[in-house]
C-alpha cells in the first residue's frame, strides 16, 4: 500500500512540472506588452518600467523560465501587483473561507447525491426514479452563479431569511457562518448533486443485478442490510472516483460563486485578479488550484486502491 502511494507520488512530479509550464506559458499569451496591460491606461512610462523590472519581463525568456522554476521550488508563487503581497500568502489567508464552504458543499453533495441516486436505483423505472433523474439533470444544466442569484432573490430579497452576501468565520460565530455559507454552498452543490446522483444510480443498478445480491436477499437479510452493506460496498468505488471531479468543479465554481456572494475567499481573490489584470496572482492562483487538485486526485487514487485491492496489485491506477 505504501509502495503504491509512493509510486503514484513520484508519477505526479513530471505532470506537476508540465502543469507549471502551462501556468507560466499563460502569462506569455498576453498580447503586446504585459507590463502596459497591467499598468493600465494611466500608467507613466516609469511605472510601466518598474512593473517590467519587477516581474523580470526585461530579461530573456529562458532566464524568466529558470527564475520561475527556481522560485517555485522554494514555494514562491510570485508577488501580486495590486495587493503588494506574495501570492502564496494572499491565497493561504483566504483559504479558510473557501475550504469551509467547499466542505459544506461536499457534505450536501454526498448526502443528497448518494440518497437520490440510491433511491432512484431502488425504485428503478418508477415515477420516483424519473423525478429523481429530472432533478439530477436539472442540477447539471443550471449555471451555478445564476442559481446563486436566484437564491439571493428568493431567500434574501423576498423572504429576508439569509444575508445576500458576506462571510462570517466559523470560529467567530457558528450560526452566522451557517447563515452566510448556506446559499453559496447550496448553489455550488446543486451541479454536483446531479452528477453524483446519476453516477450512484447507474453504479447501484449495475450492482443490484449481481448474483450475490440475490443470494443476500434469498438468505433473508433485511433490505436495509442488502443495500447498505452488500450493495453499497461496491458502489463506493465509482463514487470515490468522482470525488476528484467534484472537487475540481467546486474549486472552479468558487471563483464565480464567491464573487456573486462577496465571500472573501480564494475564488473571489481570483475573480478580482481577473478584473484587474493582476497576472502574477492569476498565474499563481491557477497553479495553486491545479496542484491542490492533483494532490486530491492522488489521495482519491490511494483511497481507491484501498477500496479495490485489484488496483494496488495491478499496478497502474488508471
Amino acid at each position, binding site marked *: 500500500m505504501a509502495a503504491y502511494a509512493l509510486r503514484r507520488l513520484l508519477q505526479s512530479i513530471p505532470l506537476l512540472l508540465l502543469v507549471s509550464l502551462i501556468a507560466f506559458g499563460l502569462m506569455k499569451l498576453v498580447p503586446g506588452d504585459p507590463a502596459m496591460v497591467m499598468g493600465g491606461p494611466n500608467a507613466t512610462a516609469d511605472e510601466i518600467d518598474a512593473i517590467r523590472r519587477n516581474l523580470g519581463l526585461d530579461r530573456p525568456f529562458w532566464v524568466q523560465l529558470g527564475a520561475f522554476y527556481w522560485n517555485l521550488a522554494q514555494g514562491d508563487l510570485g508577488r501580486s501587483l495590486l495587493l503588494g503581497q506574495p501570492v502564496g500568502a494572499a491565497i493561504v489567508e483566504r483559504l479558510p473561507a473557501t475550504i469551509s464552504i467547499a466542505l459544506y458543499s461536499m457534505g450536501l453533495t454526498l448526502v443528497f447525491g448518494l440518497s437520490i441516486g440510491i433511491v432512484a436505483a431502488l425504485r428503478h423505472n418508477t415515477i420516483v426514479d424519473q423525478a429523481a433523474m429530472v432533478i439530477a*439533470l436539472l442540477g447539471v444544466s443550471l449555471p451555478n452563479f445564476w442559481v446563486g442569484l436566484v437564491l439571493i432573490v428568493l431567500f434574501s*430579497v423576498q423572504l429576508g431569511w439569509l444575508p445576500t452576501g458576506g462571510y462570517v468565520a466559523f470560529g467567530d460565530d457558528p450560526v452566522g457562518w451557517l447563515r452566510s455559507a448556506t446559499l453559496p454552498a447550496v448553489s455550488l452543490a446543486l451541479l454536483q448533486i446531479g452528477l453524483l446522483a446519476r453516477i450512484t444510480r*447507474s453504479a447501484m443498478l449495475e450492482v443490484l443485478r449481481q448474483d450475490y445480491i440475490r443470494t443476500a436477499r434469498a438468505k433473508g437479510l433485511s433490505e436495509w442490510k442488502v443495500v447498505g452493506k452488500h450493495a453499497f460496498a461496491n458502489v463506493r468505488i465509482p463514487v470515490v472516483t468522482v470525488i476528484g471531479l467534484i472537487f475540481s468543479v467546486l474549486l472552479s465554481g468558487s471563483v464565480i460563486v464567491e464573487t456573486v456572494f462577496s465571500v472573501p475567499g480564494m475564488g473571489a481573490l481570483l475573480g478580482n485578479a481577473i478584473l484587474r489584470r493582476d497576472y502574477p496572482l*492569476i498565474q499563481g492562483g*491557477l497553479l495553486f*488550484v491545479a496542484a491542490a487538485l492533483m494532490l486530491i486526485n492522488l489521495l482519491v487514487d490511494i483511497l481507491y486502491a484501498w477500496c479495490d485491492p485489484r488496483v494496488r496489485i495491478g499496478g497502474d491506477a488508471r
Partner: protein
Amino acid sequence: MTALVLRQGLLGPTARRLLRHPSFVLGAVLFGTVVVLALAAPWVTEVGPNRMAVRLRFQPPGEMFLLGSDNLGRSMWSRVVWGARLSLLIGAWVVALNAVFGILLGLLAGYFPRLDGPLMRLADALMAFPAVLLAIGIAAALGPSVTTVIIALAVVYIPRTARILRASVLVVRELDFVQAARAAGATDGRILRRHILPNCMAPLIVQLSFVFAYAILSEAVLSFLGLGAAPTEPSWGILIAEGRSYIREAWWLTFMPGAAIAVAVLGLNLLGDGLRDVLDPRLTVERT
C-alpha cells in the same frame, strides 16, 4: 456494430430508435426550439434588442413585454432571443474546433504509439486544471472578446474530446478488419479515414453534444466575469451580469437569460443522453 448502424444512414433504424427515445425527443424539441428562435430572431421580436424606451423601464413580464423590460426600457424577450444567437454561435464554434482537433489529435495519439505518450501527457497537464478555471486563465491572458472565449473553451475541451476518441481508436485499431486492410496494403491515411474513424464516431458525437452544453454554460461564466463579448452585443452571460445590479427591483433581468441557458443546456444534455443510449450501448449502464 455501432458503425454498421451508422452506415445504414440517418433514416434507417438508428433514426427510428432515436425518435422513440423519450429523452432524445424531449431534448431535441427543447434545444431545437432555442435554435429556431435564435435563427428567426428578426421575425419573432417586435423591437430590436437595443431599442430603448426609458419611460417603460422595469416593466414586469406581462402583456406589454413578454419577459419584462430592463433598466433602459429594452425588451428582455428581444434581448434574450438575440442573445441566443451569440451564445449558440460561440457554442457551435467550440464544437466545430473540438470536432476537428479532437479527431485529429485523437487519431494521431491512438494510432501512432510514438505520438501517444507526448500528446496524452500534454492532455493530462491541461486537464489537471479545472476546466472553467483554465478557460478563465486563458481568456484573462488574451483579453476580453468573443474570439477569446471561443479559443479558451476550445483549448479546454479539446484534450477531453481527443482522449475519448483515442480510447476508441485503441480498440478499433486491433480489430480484424483493420488488420485485413493493412494486409491488403492500405496506407495509414486510408485505414484511419475509411476504417477507423467511421467506427469511432458514436462516442465522438455523444461527447460533442455534451461539449456544446458545457460551452454554453462556461461562456456564461466567462462573460459574467467580464471576459467575453462587449456589452453592446449581449450574450446570455452578459445579460445576467447586467441584470445583477438591479436584482432587487427587477428579478426578471437576471432570471430570464439564465432560464434560457437552462432550457438550451437541459435540451443538449437530454439529447446527449439519448444519443449515448442509442448510438453507443456499451457506454450505458443506466437503461439496462
